[in-house]
C-alpha cells in the first residue's frame, strides 16, 4: 500500500519532486511511457533530417545541402529511426502492456528495466553528441556518414577519420545492451509471472509476439555488439577483421551486420503484428481467427528470419548456390506472414466493424504492409534484386514495411491504449486528421519511389541531373513528405489537447476483452487490486458475460 500512496501523492507535489519520481522510477508503466516519450523526441529529430533530405532532392542539381552533409543526414536519419524511434516505441508499448495483459504487478526485474531505459536514452544522446565535437559546429562536420549499416571499409581508420564512426558504434551498442535487458526481462516475465490459470496458449497474441520478439533480440543483438567490438579493435588496436589489405574481409562485416539486420526488421514488425491482432478483433467484435496458427506462424518467423540475412547481399556477388538458398528461404517467410494476413482478414470478414482511429491505423497497416511484403518478395528474387537493389525501389520497400507497417501499427497502438495510460480519450476528429494526412502523405512520399527506383535512380545520391524522368517523382515525394510531417503534428496536438481537456475514458472504453482493461485507467502502481484467475483467452469477456463465457468452449 505504501507504494500506492506515494504514487498518488506525487500528482500534487512540486515539479521537482515529480521529476525525481520519474527519474528514479522502477514502475514498468512509467518506464514504458518514458520510452515512448523518448521515441517521440527522436521522431521529431529524425523527421527533420528526413525533410532536409527531401528538400535537397526537390529539384535537380540542388545545392541546398552539400554532399558531405547529405551523407551524414541519411546516416543519422536511418540510425535514429531504427534504433531510437521504432525500437523505443515498441519497447515502451510492450513494457507498459505485457504485465497488465498477463495480470501481474510488474516485470520480472524492475531495476534492470529502468537500467535498460536509461541505456537506450544514453545511446541516443551519445550518437547525437557527435554534432558537438571537434570541428562539428562549423558545418556539422563530425556526424557519421557511413549509412545506418556502417559498411566496411567505409568505417576503417583510413576512410573514417575522426570520431564520427565511434559515436555511431557507441550509441548503437549502448542502446543495444538496453534492448537486451528488455528482452531478458520480457522472457522471464511472460514465462513465469502469468496470472493464475493463464496458460501460455491463453495469453493475448500481443504477448506471444513479444515473446518471440524478445527471443530474436536475444540472438540477434549480441552478434552486432560483437561485430562492433571487432570494428573498434580494427580502428584502435590495429586488428584486421574488416581490412582487406591485411587479409581481412569487408564482407564479414556485411554478414555479421545483416545477421543482426534482418532479424532486426522482424523485431520491429512483430510488435506491430501483435498490436494489430489486439485491435482488429475488438473493433470487429469477433474473436481473432486462428489463434494457434497465429502463434505458430510467429514462432516460424522467429526461426526462419535467422536464416535469410544474405538476401541483403545478392549484389556483392556471392556464390550462385548461396543466392539460390537465401532467395528460397526468403520466399519461405512469406508463408507464415501470409497466414497472418489471412487470419486478420478472416477476423474482419463478417465482423461488425467500428471505424475508430485505432481501427483505421490497423487497416492502414494491413494495406501498406501488404505492399511492402510483396515488394519484399520481388527483391528476394535474385535477378530482380540485381536490377533494383540500391535504387529507390529498395527505399520504397523498406519504408512500406517499416513506416507503413511497423510505425503505423505502433501509432495505432498509441491510440488504442492511450485511454488506459492516461485516463483520457484522444480526439477522434484530430485522430482522423492525423490518420488521413499520414496515410496520403505516406503514399505520395514512398509510392513514387517505386517508379523512380525502376527508372534507375540510385539510393543515397545527393542530387541528380535533369532530363532522366526523375524530377516529377521526386517532387511528388517531397510534397508527400511535408504532408506527412504535418500529419504527425496533428498527433502531438491531439495528445496535448487530450491531456488537458480530453474526455474521461473509464476503465474499458472500447469494450475489450483482455486483462489490461480490467483495472482502472490509469492503473494504480500495483496494477491490480486483486489478481484475477484466468480460464480462457478472453478473461474480461468471461467476467462480462457469465451466462456465456468462453471457457465453456475452449
Amino acid at each position, binding site marked *: 500500500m505504501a507504494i500506492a500512496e506515494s504514487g498518488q501523492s506525487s500528482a500534487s507535489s512540486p515539479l521537482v519532486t515529480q521529476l525525481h519520481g520519474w527519474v528514479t522510477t522502477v514502475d514498468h508503466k512509467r518506464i514504458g511511457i518514458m520510452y515512448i516519450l523518448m521515441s517521440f523526441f527522436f521522431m521529431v529529430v529524425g523527421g527533420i533530417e528526413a525533410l532536409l533530405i527531401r528538400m535537397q532532392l526537390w529539384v535537380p542539381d540542388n545545392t541546398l545541402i552539400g554532399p558531405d552533409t547529405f551523407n551524414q543526414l541519411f546516416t543519422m536519419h536511418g540510425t535514429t529511426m531504427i534504433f531510437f524511434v521504432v525500437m523505443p516505441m515498441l519497447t515502451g508499448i510492450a513494457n507498459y502492456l505485457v504485465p497488465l495483459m498477463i495480470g501481474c504487478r510488474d516485470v520480472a526485474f524492475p531495476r534492470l528495466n529502468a537500467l535498460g531505459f536509461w541505456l537506450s536514452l544514453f545511446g541516443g544522446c551519445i550518437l547525437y553528441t557527435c554534432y558537438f565535437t571537434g570541428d562539428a559546429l562549423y558545418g556539422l562536420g563530425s556526424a557519421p556518414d557511413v549509412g545506418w549499416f556502417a559498411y566496411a571499409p567505409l568505417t576503417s581508420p583510413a576512410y573514417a577519420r575522426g570520431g564520427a564512426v565511434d559515436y555511431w558504434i557507441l550509441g548503437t551498442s549502448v542502446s543495444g545492451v538496453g534492448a537486451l535487458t528488455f528482452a531478458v526481462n520480457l522472457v522471464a516475465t511472460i514465462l*513465469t509471472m502469468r496470472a493464475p*490459470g493463464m496458460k501460455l496458449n491463453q495469453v493475448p497474441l500481443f504477448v506471444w509476439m513479444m515473446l518471440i520478439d524478445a527471443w530474436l533480440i536475444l540472438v*540477434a543483438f549480441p552478434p552486432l555488439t560483437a561485430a562492433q567490438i571487432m570494428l573498434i579493435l580494427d580502428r584502435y588496436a590495429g586488428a584486421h*577483421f574488416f581490412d582487406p589489405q591485411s587479409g581481412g574481409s569487408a564482407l564479414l562485416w556485411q554478414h555479421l551486420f545483416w545477421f543482426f539486420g534482418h532479424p532486426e526488421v522482424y523485431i520491429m514488425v512483430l510488435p506491430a503484428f501483435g498490436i494489430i491482432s489486439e485491435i482488429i478483433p475488438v473493433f470487429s467484435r469477433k474473436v481473432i481467427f486462428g489463434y494457434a496458427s497465429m502463434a505458430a506462424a510467429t514462432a516460424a518467423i522467429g526461426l526462419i528470419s535467422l536464416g535469410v540475412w544474405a538476401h541483403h547481399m545478392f549484389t556483392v556477388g556471392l556464390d550462385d548456390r548461396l543466392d539460390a538458398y537465401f532467395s528460397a528461404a526468403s520466399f519461405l517467410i512469406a508463408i507464415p506472414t501470409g497466414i497472418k494476413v489471412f487470419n486478420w482478414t478472416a477476423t474482419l470478414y463478417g465482423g461488425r466493424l467500428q471505424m475508430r482511429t485505432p481501427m483505421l491505423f490497423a487497416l492502414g497497416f494491413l494495406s501498406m504492409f501488404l505492399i511492402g511484403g510483396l515488394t519484399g518478395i520481388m527483391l528476394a528474387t535474385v535477378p530482380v534484386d540485381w536490377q533494383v537493389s540500391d535504387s529507390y525501389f529498395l527505399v520504397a520497400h523498406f519504408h512500406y514495411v517499416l513506416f507503413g507497417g511497423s510505425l503505423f501499427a505502433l501509432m495505432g497502438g498509441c491510440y488504442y491504449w492511450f485511454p488506459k495510460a492516461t485516463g483520457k480519450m484522444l480526439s477522434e476528429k484530430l485522430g482522423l486528421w492525423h490518420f488521413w494526412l499520414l496515410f496520403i502523405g505516406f503514399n505520395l512520399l514512398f509510392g513514387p519511389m517505386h517508379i523512380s527506383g525502376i527508372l534507375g535512380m540510385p539510393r543515397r545520391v545527393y542530387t541528380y541531373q535533369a532530363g532522366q524522368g526523375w524530377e516529377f517523382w521526386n517532387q511528388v515525394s517531397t510534397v508527400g513528405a511535408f504532408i506527412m510531417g504535418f500529419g504527425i503534428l496533428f498527433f502531438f496536438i491531439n495528445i496535448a489537447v487530450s491531456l488537458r481537456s480530453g474526455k474521461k475514458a473509464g476503465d474499458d472504453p472500447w469494450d475489450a476483452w483482455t486483462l489490461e482493461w480490467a483495472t482502472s485507467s490509469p492503473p494504480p502502481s500495483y496494477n491490480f487490486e486483486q489478481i484475477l484467475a*484466468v480460464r480462457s483467452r478472453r478473461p474480461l469477456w468471461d467476467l462480462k458475460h457469465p451466462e456465456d463465457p468462453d471457457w465453456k468452449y475452449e
Partner: protein
Amino acid sequence: MSKSTADEALELPPVESSEFPLTTAQVGMAAFLCSEAAFFSTLVVSYLIYLGQDQSGPTPAESLSLTRAVINSAFLLGSSGTIMLAMNSRKANSLGGFSVWMFVTIALGVMFLVGTAYEWEELIYKDGLTISRNLFGTTFFTLIGFHAFHVTIGLVLLTIITCLERAGRFSAKSEAPELVSWYWHFVDAVWIVIFGVVYWMGT
C-alpha cells in the same frame, strides 16, 4: 473469504495450474546466457572463417602449445566441479564446506588467468604474435581476450557471493549463488568449444 471459495460459489471451473518449471530468476539467467552464447558464437565463427587464411605467421601450429592449453583447461574445468561441490554443501547447510569449495573454485579460476597471462607473454614476447601482427593474432586475442574477461567478471561475482554468504546476507532460499554457478559453468562450456576450435584444431 478466499478467492477460490468465491469462485466455487459462482460455480466456476477450477483454474488449472500455469506453473513454469523454472523460477523467474532462473529464466532471466538462462535468457542472458542465450545472448552470451550468441555473442561467443560470433567470435568463434569469425575465428574459424580466418583460420588458415593468413600464412604470414606465426600460425597456430607454430605458436600454440597443446600441453600448455591442457594444463590451463584442467584448472578451469576442475573449477566447474568444485563449484558444484560448493553448491551441494550449501544445500546441505554447511557454510564451512561452501566456503572451502568456493575458495578452491576461485583459486582455480585465478590460476587459469595466470596461465593465460603466461601464454600471452610467451606469444607476444617470444613469437611476436600481437593483435595487429596477422589475422590469427587478431582473431585469437579477441576470442581468448573476451573469454578471459568473462572469467574475470565471474571471479568477481564468485568473491562477492562468498563474502555475502559468509556474512549471512543470503537466506537459504536465495538463488543468487546457484545462478552465479550457472554463469561459471557457461564460461566453462565456452572454453571447451574454444579448446576444440583453437587449440585442438590448431595444433
